[in-house]
């Protein structure tokens, strides 16, 4: 009975972990593209702001950021609930790492392609959206996959700002049952399974993207 009971509680926590991981990964991806493009294509001021954002976010520990958002931000008048705090902290964090991936991808496009686009009088926006981004997004996929798993692991820290995720539930159960070995083994397995599923999904998306790239729009069969 205890096994079933423990698993039920841990599964509920795992659901919260999954929701937080998915939302923060998607938001992080949006931040990554905005900041990454701003870093490469932005003017001197915008590119410098993007650089500062990336360097600052990558230079500070996630836990410090979460605690800052949770304990310090209310003192200057901005009070967010724990769930929002967790999502914001995780997204800002992983978005900065993703922005570096986007920057690397965009800078890997050969200059001749950009010169050719310019010679054809394509606008910068058109060049970005139809020439450079589509081919680099596929090359970014493995790195994004790693970051998604990294972000999933990072979600464990939101338990420390009182979100009832898998880690939080594990701590609760341990405090009641004192059976540390069993609870934490189950928890580790829970994260491991979620990470494997996430990796598989990312590889599937990459596969899909590669198939799509072989048949440009209008030529799909």
């Amino acid at each position, binding site marked *: 009975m205890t096994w079933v009971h423990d698993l039920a509680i841990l599964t509920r926590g795992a659901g919260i972990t999954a929701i937080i991981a998915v939302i923060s990964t998607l938001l992080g991806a949006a931040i990554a593209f905005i900041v990454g493009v701003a870093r490469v294509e932005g003017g001197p001021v915008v590119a410098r702001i993007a650089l500062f954002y990336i360097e600052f976010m990558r*230079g500070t520990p996630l836990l410090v*950021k979460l605690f800052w958002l949770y304990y310090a931000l209310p003192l*200057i008048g901005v009070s967010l609930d724990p769930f929002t705090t967790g999502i914001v902290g995780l997204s800002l964090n992983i978005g900065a790492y993703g922005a570096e991936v986007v920057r690397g991808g965009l800078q890997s496009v050969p200059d001749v392609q950009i010169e050719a686009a310019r010679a054809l009088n394509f606008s910068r926006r058109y060049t970005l959206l139809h020439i450079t981004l589509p081919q680099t997004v596929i090359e970014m996929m493995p790195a994004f996959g790693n970051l998604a798993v990294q972000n999933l692991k990072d979600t*464990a820290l939101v*338990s*420390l700002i009182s979100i009832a995720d898998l880690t939080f539930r594990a701590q609760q159960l*341990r405090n009641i049952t004192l059976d*540390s070995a069993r609870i*934490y083994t189950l928890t*580790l397995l829970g994260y491991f399974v979620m990470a494997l599923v996430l990796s598989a999904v990312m590889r599937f998306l990459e596969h899909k993207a590669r198939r799509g790239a072989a048949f440009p729009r209008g030529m799909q069969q």
Partner: protein
Amino acid sequence: MMYGFTYDTSSRLAYALSILPILGIGLIVTLEAAVAGFVFALVLGLAWSLLRRSRIRAVSWGAACIVEFIRDTPLLIQLFFLYYVLPDYGVILPAFLTGVLALGLQYSAYTSEVYRGGFDAVPREQWEAATALNLSRFRIYRDIVIPQTIPRIAPAMGNYAVSMLKETPVLSVVTVLDMLNLANMIGDRTFEYLVPLSLVGLIFPIMTTLCSVGIHALERILPKAGVALR
């Protein structure tokens, strides 16, 4: 009052200056944990990568599975596991040492990948030549493979060292008195978290930047041909 330093809450600046020495004490603990953890990660990662290259299938496969498992699970849970489960089996370690073990364990999974890439980059002919010269596997690794690998893997290892430094605040969860833990304790006593937490948030980027500069300097010093181990 903490470590003999009193808080001066008359103004934000005075408050920040008065708690800076306390955070400095925490910073030393943070740096110690990062250095000790990284040394452990370097050794354990090397062990994983050598086991993965074992000729015995079960050993190489088992090592690969363990590394994958460590890499895909959060540091925080590994830390809790070591902190709460080891004492149940009679292994009672101070929190700091448990934290160092957890950091080293997590990062050994990353460093083992770096070693693997480094070993794979050694040309096949060198292995064949060494085997033809009847060198033992131990001597091949010690005198030929690892010396050449060191300068190649140094940049990647340096990045992991910096990223480990940024993970040390997690140790505050198991009562290690690192910089973040002291900042929180100061906040608990003064009801003012903004200044201590902001200071920690500023000190870390400074530290990581300094570390990056130091590591780049180290990379330049390392001879490109390799580092002899004897």
